[in-house]
């Protein structure tokens, strides 16, 4: 893996009149060439500030930022501008010039790089074709939908063949369907152009959809980072768990708990185990009956991650043995009562 962005001990403190607020607190981070890296966190966690330090839209208070081997903080203004041309950026609010046509908005980035008029025209049409907006080149941003605006801004950000694309909550202002299509486009660009993408978001869905690796931020610090699948399969930090829960968990109505006479277990299947026949083996091996109450298998980075809630009925001794066997086989097994785990066993700690 070749690293494209390296951040070393980065700090950003905002000085206001009366107090200083820490935006980013001693963050070190490496982002590899060609990957899609996500940063999640609640608003105010400092993820946006961190992202904006990657092209020096925000100048860090201390620390180092290397993009493609260049120490951005050491560059004089003119060279920093040149460096920025190979770092594309898109925003939650699109930030298109309202007085320019779609074509001129994209061409602006080329103009900034000193591309000749004739080549600008050619390249702009190529870019609009890439994002699927060839027919809108003469329209003004006010005539476009949110998703279309974001496509224009993606075209603009790709104009100078950047090595990395920074996405600042790029899908947060879009509806779920449009979000999906924008993410698909980003994924395609990542595949076809080999473009490294760094995206920050508060939506775990987005991370699940396209990120190879992901970091979780809280109060300016990175509290956990891992491959997206690992993060979903075995989150360690409480906040990470909360984020995962927002997309992976499901609630079972209380009435159902009251009706159930057996033991209710929630099981998490990760990696290969999600594809094995653990449940049916279990029901064969022990004298119990199983009743699926809820279940879901998600595919993250093309790997399955399943969560099932089952009611197990039978003699208590058999159930105890069955649970033990489950605990040995699975990532996480929880016995639930009224929706809350009463006895939690984490297979990895045994």
């Amino acid at each position, binding site marked *: 893996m070749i690293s494209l962005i390296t951040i070393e001990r980065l700090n950003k403190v905002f000085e206001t009149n009366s107090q200083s607020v820490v935006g980013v607190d001693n963050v070190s981070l490496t982002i590899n060439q060609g990957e899609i890296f996500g940063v999640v966190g609640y608003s105010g966690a400092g993820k946006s500030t961190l992202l904006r330090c990657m092209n020096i*839209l925000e100048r860090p208070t201390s620390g180092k930022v290397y993009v493609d081997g260049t120490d951005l903080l050491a560059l004089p203004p003119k060279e920093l501008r040149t460096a920025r041309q190979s770092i594309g950026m898109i925003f939650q609010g699109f*930030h298109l010039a309202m007085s320019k046509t779609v074509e001129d908005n994209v061409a602006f980035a080329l103009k900034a790089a000193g591309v000749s008029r004739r080549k600008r025209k050619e390249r702009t049409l190529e870019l609009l074709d890439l994002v699927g907006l060839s027919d809108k080149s003469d329209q003004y941003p*006010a005539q476009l939908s949110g998703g279309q605006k974001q496509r224009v801004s993606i075209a603009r950000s790709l104009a100078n063949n950047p090595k990395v694309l920074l996405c600042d909550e790029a899908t947060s202002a879009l509806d779920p369907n449009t979000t999906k299509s924008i993410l698909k486009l980003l994924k395609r660009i990542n595949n076809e152009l080999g473009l490294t993408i760094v995206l920050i978001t508060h939506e775990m869905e987005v991370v699940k959809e396209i990120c190879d690796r992901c970091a979780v931020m809280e109060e300016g610090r990175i509290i956990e980072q891992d491959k997206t699948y690992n993060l979903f399969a075995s989150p360690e930090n409480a906040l990470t768990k909360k984020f995962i829960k927002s997309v992976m968990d499901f609630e079972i109505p209380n009435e159902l708990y009251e009706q159930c006479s057996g033991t209710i277990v929630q099981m998490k299947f990760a990696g290969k185990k999600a594809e094995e026949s653990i449940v049916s083996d279990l029901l064969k091996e022990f004298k119990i009956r199983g009743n699926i109450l809820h279940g879901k298998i998600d595919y993250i980075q093309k790997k399955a991650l399943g969560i099932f809630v089952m009611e197990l009925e039978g003699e208590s001794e058999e159930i105890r043995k069955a649970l033990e066997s489950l605990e040995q086989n699975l990532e996480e097994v929880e016995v639930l009562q009224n929706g809350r785990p009463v006895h939690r066993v984490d297979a990895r700690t045994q």
Partner: protein
Amino acid sequence: MVDQFIELMPELNKSFVETLIMVGIGLLVALIVGLPLGILLFVTDRNLFLENRWLKSILGVVVNLVRSVPFIILLVFLLPFTNFLLGTTTGPVSASVSLSVAAIPFYARIVESAARDIDRGVIEAAIACGASPWLIIKDIIFPEIKPGLISGLTITAISLIGYSAMAGAIGGGGIGDLAIRYGYYRYDNFVMFTTVILLVVMVQVIQYAGDFISKSVKKS
């Protein structure tokens, strides 16, 4: 009444042209000097790409200083400067010196406030593209505020018409001066009403034209 009007015509014509000269020169200077000044006031502001606290506050103080002097005082105060510049202190061109000096900061503030209305994110996106400050001013800020620049010019023109009435105090002439000399000093109501009606029509035409042009360059 028709006789009176015919009698007044040459004087009215002359005054009208004088007003046009005064306001025209004032507007031109406002555009040439006030526009860049307004943009400079904007881009040197906090958190903007040419942030410069010293320049910003010096410019701000100077602009406020000129704006706080009543126009009639400014007119008299600038007489030596006008004399130095033109070798005379009377006539519409002389009066336009003071009008220009008053128009520059007036228009500069209008330009500045129009620029403040631009979504900061658009400027930020331009910076992220690696654009130079000059390109951002020329290619982003200027087109984005074009409707505001035109309606600001309308406001400035109308204010200058008002100011130009005082130009008579230094022998500058103009419609306003005519109204004061005949209508006010000589109690000639006919001249007074005629000139006032002419001023009203002028202002309406300018406002209408300004709105029309401003609207036609607006893209959203």
